[in-house]
């Protein structure tokens, strides 16, 4: 095992060439006191047949429930071609394209990706990805501090309608460099960030405002007004967006009079399976004037010695392998393979397919909400438009309802008790284009039955 091809004769010849008697001798510079005695905690090897059986059993244990949870990770149809090509060894087992001549495939894919994601977000330039949507918010905040030279406060306003996990990751990541994240409350009736909530910052030094559209509740923020408020006060705008929604919704580059300054988000909806939360990828785009403040790899088109077009990593003086302690970020490995999948996905969907996916997802959620709202003891939490996700309020605790639904093979949504206790019993639900009328019917019927058995508070 261990995928080692050596025969005993090979080993013998190799040891002779080195001039040692045994492999053991090659470790003679390591103090003997440090040598491993045993690895008793590691089990015996399994061959491929055995591991296949084990993993198939484990997968079966988890089952394949009907999922109505969104909250930052969305079930969409993924064309078979996406992963058939993405897992080709030439993409799957290649390294970062530092040797450009031997990596033109990867480099061109990233260039095409940069073009697509920049256009989708309505901004000029894109990097080659960061880890996920949450780390993208953290990196964008650090970038805003570098880009907004007039602001000295390192103060970032983050509405509580931004994904709770993203807010936590931003604090855990950028808090170490002295950034302060201040929460802006939402309007309890509407579930969006009102301009009035920003008035206390009217005359304060603020570096950036984060705006999530659609927000964590699925509600649509007044992005134009929020963006203009920020720009009137020298505050940069960081947009956090769902890429599927951008087929229908105004791109960040067109928010307000000047457009958002940085757009980031979770790339998972673009052809990446839910897969327990990763690997996904974070996308990041910005205005051309801020490109040198951007973290991560960037691919440019140039020419070779013969004047023929080719691609290479560029603006590397921003990065850790050149600039070390003064780099824009410590990021090295990113999420390249997921970017490859997303580029193939966007190519197969095209503008029309992505638009239909967004519209169909939205339509399914509306049907779901209509069905749920017919039940006694459930009502929508907020007035106003949503995109493909929404919050429902219950007259009884949500956890036992979800548990009962799960036992029927339905994952009914996300209980908001942990992150938004002020809402009372509340459920975040989502349907996408993958759900049929029959799936939605099954959900509402099951919910109606379950509600009978869970008593109202």
């Amino acid at each position: 095992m261990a995928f080692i091809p050596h025969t005993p004769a090979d080993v013998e010849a190799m040891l002779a060439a080195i001039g040692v008697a045994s492999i053991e001798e090659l470790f003679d510079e390591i103090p003997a006191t440090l040598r491993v005695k045993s690895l008793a905690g590691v089990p015996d090897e399994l061959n491929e047949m055995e591991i296949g059986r084990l993993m198939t059993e484990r997968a079966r244990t988890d089952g394949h429930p009907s999922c109505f949870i969104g909250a930052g990770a969305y079930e969409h149809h993924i064309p078979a071609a996406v992963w058939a090509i993405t897992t080709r060894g030439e993409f799957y087992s290649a390294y970062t394209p530092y040797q450009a001549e031997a990596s033109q495939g990867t480099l061109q894919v990233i260039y095409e990706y940069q073009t697509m994601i920049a256009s989708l977000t309505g901004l000029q330039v894109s990097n080659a990805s960061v880890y996920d949507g949450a780390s993208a918010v953290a990196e964008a905040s650090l970038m805003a501090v570098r880009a907004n030279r007039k602001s000295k406060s390192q103060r970032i306003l983050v509405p509580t309608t931004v994904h709770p996990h993203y807010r936590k990751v931003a604090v855990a990541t950028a808090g170490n460099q002295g950034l302060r994240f201040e929460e802006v409350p939402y309007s309890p009736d509407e579930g969006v960030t009102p301009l009035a909530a920003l008035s206390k910052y009217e005359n304060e030094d603020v570096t950036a405002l984060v705006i999530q559209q659609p927000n964590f509740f699925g509600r649509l923020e007044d992005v134009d007004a929020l963006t203009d408020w920020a720009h009137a006060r020298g505050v940069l705008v960081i947009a956090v967006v769902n890429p599927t929604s951008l087929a229908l919704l105004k791109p960040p580059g067109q928010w307000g009079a000047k457009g958002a300054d940085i757009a980031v988000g979770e790339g998972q909806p673009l052809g990446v399976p839910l897969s327990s939360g990763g690997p996904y990828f974070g996308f990041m785009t910005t205005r051309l004037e801020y490109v040198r403040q951007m973290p991560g790899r960037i691919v440019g088109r140039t020419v070779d010695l013969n004047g023929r077009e080719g691609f290479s990593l560029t603006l590397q003086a921003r990065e850790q392998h050149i600039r070390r302690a003064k780099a824009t970020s410590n990021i090295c490995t990113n999420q390249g393979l997921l970017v490859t999948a997303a580029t193939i996905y966007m190519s197969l969907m095209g503008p029309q397919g992505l638009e239909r996916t967004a519209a169909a997802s939205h339509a399914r959620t509306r049907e779901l909400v209509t069905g749920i709202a017919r039940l006694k003891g459930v009502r929508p939490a907020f007035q106003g438009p949503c995109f493909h996700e929404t919050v429902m309020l219950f007259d009884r605790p949500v956890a036992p309802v979800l548990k009962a639904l799960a036992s029927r093979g339905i994952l009914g949504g996300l209980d908001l008790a942990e992150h938004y206790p002020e809402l009372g019993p509340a459920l975040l639900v989502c349907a996408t284009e993958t759900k049929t009328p029959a799936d939605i019917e099954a959900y509402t019927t099951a919910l109606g039955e379950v509600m009978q058995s869970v008593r109202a508070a």
Partner: protein
Amino acid sequence: MRTREKVIFEHSHPGRGAADQWPHDPGSAAIADIPQKLRRTQRPLLPEVGELEAVRHFTRLSQLNFSIDTHFYPLGSCTMKYNPKACNQYAMLPEFLARHPLGPESHGQGFLACMHELQEMLKEVTGMQAVALSPMAGAHGEFAGVAMIRAFHRSRGDLARNEIIVPEAAHGTNPATATMCGCVVREIPVDAAGDVDLAALEAAVGPNTAGIMLTNPSTLGVFERRIEQVARIVHAAGGLLYYDGANLNAILGKVRPGDMGFDVIHMNLHKTFSTPHGGGGPGAGAVGVSARLEPFLPIPIVGREGERYRWLAERDRPQSIGRLSAFMGNAGVLLRAYIYMRMLGREGMSRVGEYATLNANYLLALLKERGFDAAYPSRRASHEFIITLKKQARDLEVTAMDFAKRLLDYGFHAPTTYFPLLVPECLLIEPTETEGKDTLDAFVAAMSQIQTEAEQEPERVTSAPHTMPVRRLDDVRAAKQLDLTWKPTAQS
């Protein structure tokens, strides 16, 4: 190799598309509730191509790449070993792919069992007390590690400790990470034999020392022989030791970072545990810690209670440095690493370190015999080693980069060039254990052939590569005349 492929937008035709992939049109009434002022008015620039056109385009692009599956890839410090197909196939079982990250634990016991066992195996092979899996790359694991070191000192009211010591040969991510964590970097030299300069270390440590970041074997391809003294000096000064796991493959099953005295480590699962590099990621940078750092581990972590597995979060770990990913890090990568480790088992694990070291020392012996200069000739190679071409650069005006580019023509990916920075004209070569003797012999033959070319027709080498899809690229132009996105108008 194939020469080139048009940019996909040049294949595009308005109105064309892979319509079989699209949902049925729900009609405009379906979105009537979205206010006009919040809508998009102009379609994004996405390709309009048929499915076969897209498949052909991306398949052709893949053929412009070197990869482990197609070429020997002896890229030092990157551990480009074979990525077993089974790891991919069984991590992509439909139930695993469909599992929502916020799904209930009742529908995740199979997945969580794999994660818990992975934590346990990683503890065992590194000698650490506890492991967290969520960091998504090596540098992300470094961030978690240094953040834990800071949190540890702060929890004791020791607020002055903000200096991270880094040897000058360290990976760039080490100093960059220290900065990300709000620390100050102090670089210290290594001696002529490649070991840390202990006198310089003694002089550098003090009441401001948060810790030291070390790779062992180091980036110079040699084992840090005085690691126990290094640990004593840093610990005596009140600092902690951070192990950069980039080179863990060299010692897997032979020595454990925990036994060397390290307090915190990250592991690059995409190196040592053979998950794919994917053309730049995803990786996975699991972290391991000694007992005193366990409370600070990033969440979530997988806990076990009897026969049930569950996520440990804020309420279980109030001192945690917090959450570093939206969900559970690169879960699918972690599954691949789990499968790989189970396939290797206890025996396989120590064979990795042994054969990686055998291959490196064999390759070094052969290259020395053919006249190439080792950077540290008196030392054993670890799983990798450095040769320096400063003689060739001086006498023949053929550089390490020229050798690297010419190797591409011979069908070998180039070794790492010009890293570490302190060895002039260097190639850092890491064959890994999954390569056989024949491949190594062929690589040596190519190096010898290039040496002959460098002596007899140097321009053949200095103008290489000749057989790749492109010649050497104009990087200055790439940075000065930025062309980062395709634009329709520029093409007409």
